[in-house]
């Protein structure tokens, strides 16, 4: 007896087989004449400089972290959304309280600036006149 997920497994299997067959079939037709230049990492025709596996923006990590928290909470909400009507207003209230807490966490993240992407902040210099010497000074 094949369950629903068994059929989904058949879908995934077909997808894998399709990609493998398509790539392998092309192997018999396509040419293969590798040269040093062809096998170089593409960097707009120049010799690649340094390793690409470098440090990248920490924001990606923060976004992934916030997403993880939200996703878990959303997974908890789905069963509630399926059944809350059976419990009337009380059932809705429980979900609403949960959502309120979620919103509170979101507001905290927002206030802390975790949702902000790095942007150069423009700080215009302040000019101040010295009353004694009458000279203009730049204050940082």
């Amino acid at each position: 007896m094949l369950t629903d997920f068994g059929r989904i497994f058949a879908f995934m299997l077909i997808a894998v087989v399709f990609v493998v067959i398509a790539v392998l079939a092309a192997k018999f037709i396509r040419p293969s004449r590798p040269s040093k230049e062809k096998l170089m990492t593409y960097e707009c025709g120049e010799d690649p400089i340094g390793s690409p596996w470098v440090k990248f923006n920490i924001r990606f990590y923060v976004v992934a972290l916030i997403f993880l928290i939200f996703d878990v909470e959303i997974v908890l909400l789905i069963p509630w959304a399926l059944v809350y009507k059976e419990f009337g207003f009380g059932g809705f209230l429980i979900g609403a309280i949960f959502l309120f807490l979620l919103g509170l966490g979101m507001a905290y993240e927002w206030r802390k600036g975790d949702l902000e992407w790095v942007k150069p902040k423009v700080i215009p210099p302040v000019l101040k006149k010295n009353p004694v010497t009458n000279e203009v000074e730049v204050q940082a």
Partner: protein
Amino acid sequence: MTYDFFYKLFGSQVIAAIIQSLLPLFVFILPFALFAVWLERKVSAHMQDRLGPMRVGWHGWLQTVADILKLIQKEDIIATANDKPLFNLAPVLVFVGTYAAFAAIPFTSAFIGSNLDLGVFFIVAVSGFVVAGILMAGWASNNKYSLLGAMRSAAQIISYEIPTVMVIITIVMITGTLNLNTLSQLQTGHFWNWMIFGGPVFGVSKFLMIPFMIISFGIIYISTLAEVNRTPFDIPEAESELVSGYHTEYSGMKFAMFFLAEYANMFAVSAIVTALFFGGYQSPIGYIGHLLGLPWLVPIEQLFWFTAKGLFFVFVQMWLRWTLPRLRVDQLMTACWKYLIPIAFADLIIIGLITLI
């Protein structure tokens, strides 16, 4: 159901399942991808007052077939710096994630790959494969453009998944089901029974719901656009800065697989939006099959309506692509976290209150 038909024909559940899972790929996705690539080029061309492909076939309709023939003959370059096993695995993973989503999409009342009770939830979950595949492609390419594109793409897809799921939760709250087939059946009858018009239940709540349903539809459409990396959210493969993002290093058939997955994904998200808000496979004006007393005609009409609705949303995606400029990364994140998610939150609570009336 198609599955039962194949089961009776071959007497084996495994063979029936395999044949049924071949159907969406060869009957639907491949012809659709061929057509959609051609359509995209024609739409873009006509929007910019050009002609687009004209040489191969009538108005260039065989252009994509010619492109496929070209791609098969292309050399498959795996650069020395690439991480070979991961590099080869990535297109498989991306395509599997995309194709598995099709298992839970009801094309007609007679064909659904797997009539899962988890339906939409399964689709959201399995689309995580795509993120893993994209990250894998970017990392294994050992290329600065690829890695940056993959990181941006992953951040974007996971960010925009939250408003998508929130809108799905609002629909679940109204209908009380996650099964896409049941959802489509609920919206039977005429177009005023669609979820965008407040669902099949007639009453005060239906009319109260309409503005919020339209807002929900806007949110989910914007988020799904971002999830398939389409303009205005195509910063992961912004040509002017990142060459072509995470598939910069790919060539030949592997590139074609990424391309196919992208177009299949475009249809998948349109199909989900259709099933959630626009009645899925249901006809807006009733069936000729019922009128003439030909019950076998109904599934064919349903397939027609489903394809038509899905194609319409794919067309809107293309339309937006050639109309709107690209967002910056910080604008992209702001749009999701500071606008879409709070609006989706409020929307969810208000709809919850309305359903209690």
